């Protein structure tokens, strides 16, 4: 129920995002979801890709500072209030979201969210108790 995510440290410099995505392209790696958090000086690029191990290896070899960790993917009803319901559940349980980003689950075409929680186990339990589906896997990883 955890999805591997690659994070990459980037300076806010022209062309760095292009460099990362080119490396992935050259190695036939597909990006499923991404988000960038940045300050005026640097950014953290977070990626969900179809071949995470390979992506990590390639980025590292290219000299990037990268790391892999696991995040939670949650399916969200594609209708008004879908996300609000999830966030209310978490807020009622006083659970903080470190960061989140949305994507479309490739196999089903349905809306999904990546979550990074401060207290992951509790957050997962709360969501499940609230009837929210935690994605067991994202289909692209199946190969």
């Amino acid at each position, binding site marked *: 129920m955890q999805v591997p*995510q690659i*994070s990459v*440290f*980037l*300076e806010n410099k022209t062309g*760095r995002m292009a460099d990362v995505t080119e490396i992935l392209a050259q190695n036939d790696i597909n990006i499923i979801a991404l988000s960038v*958090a940045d*300050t005026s*000086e*640097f950014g*953290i690029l*977070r990626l969900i890709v179809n071949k995470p191990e390979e992506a990590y290896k390639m980025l590292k070899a290219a*000299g*990037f*500072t*990268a*790391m892999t*960790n696991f995040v939670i993917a949650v399916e969200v009803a594609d209708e008004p209030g879908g996300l609000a319901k999830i966030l209310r559940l978490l807020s009622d349980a006083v659970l903080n979201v*470190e*960061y989140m980003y949305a994507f479309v689950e490739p196999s089903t075409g349905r809306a999904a969210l990546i979550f*990074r929680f401060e207290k992951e186990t509790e957050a997962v339990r709360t969501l499940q108790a609230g009837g929210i589906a935690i994605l067991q896997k994202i289909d692209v990883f199946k190969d």
Partner: protein
Amino acid sequence: MAIWDPEYECMPRDEIRRLQSRRLVDVVGRVYENVPFYRQRFDEAGLKPSDITSVDDLEKIPFTTKDDFRNQYPFGLFAVPRRDVVRIHCSSGTTGKPTVVGYTKKDLETWSDLVARFLTAASVTADDTVQIAFGYGLFTGGFGLHYGVEKIGATIVPASSGFTERQLHLMADFGVTVLVCTPSYALYLGETAVALGLSDRLKLRVGCFGAEPWTDQMRDSIEERLGIRATDNYGLSEVIGPGVAGECLERNGHHIFEDHFIPEIVDPETGESLPEGELGELVVTTLTKEALPVLRYRTRDLTALHTGKCSCGRTQARIERLHGRSDDMLIIRGVNVFPSQIESALLEVEGTQPHYRILVDRERGQDTLTVEVEVGAGIFRDEMKAMVALENTLKEKLTNTLGLTPRLRLVEPKSIERSTGKAVRVIDNRKD
């Protein structure tokens, strides 16, 4: 022009030399007796205090360095019982530990007297109002100047450093005539005065600047902007603080107060003495200090020495305005910074690698220090909160170690050039 202490400042040179010899014999005896460090140095060199009978024997004495101060931290070089030490000051060491200096009551008297000498040489009198914009604290600049100005009997405005706009209002409202600060801050004050439209209200006539090397171009722009005569003075805390040497209005170099200090110029590589007029490293021996006498201290400041007569009437030798440093010390806003300090502060943070770069710039007359740190796997996190916390921790460590707040920039690995030899870690972009 007035001379504060003509008896000594205008003493015939052969008399100065005799006085120095007498005082040298005395200080050698005192340190050998009271400072285990010097006794060991002498013993190791097979040197007895009785081997030193005059200034001609000076070269036999081993050098003292900033590292010796570090190794004797905090009070190992003091030559008097602790109860006789009435003041402590510090400056930056080459690593995390500061260099500690101490003063007896008599040392403080001597110090303020020497400051009074260079202030008088710069034409400051009891009729002046002097604003001191040096930091008051461990740094020798603030208190050093303060008691010297007091000795002269001028009115002091102890503004300390910072709050530029307030500094200018005080100067305008109080009719301040003399400004004491670093030359780069003087330049900035001048610019700000123009920007605030306060220039016409200033009554400044003289500036006594120090703690930082500067150039003639910078002097010209300070004089133009503030409408003053800008003078330079020289000192370093290991020797006494400001008051080692100071310019007279002839601007022939800085008279070094030879009745209290013996200056030498040596080759920074070999330590060999260099003839008069040649550029080399200044080495200073203190003759009268009680709490912390130093023998042949390697200042790392590059200059040349001249003994020819100065038309101001003073007979004491002059050192040229500083030409730079023989080590990698940076002077930023008057604060001494060693790259090694920055490195040890960074390495205190777990996971940090010693890949960093130091950028020094001068923006609108003020020095800025930027430290770039490479982000390797050891310190990288996927959460922005953690990265910002890292940035703050590094900045705090640096601020605590250096005594000034740098800008910190996290950069990608390998973005800082690697070299096979000595890494180029410092880029000093300061121009005037």
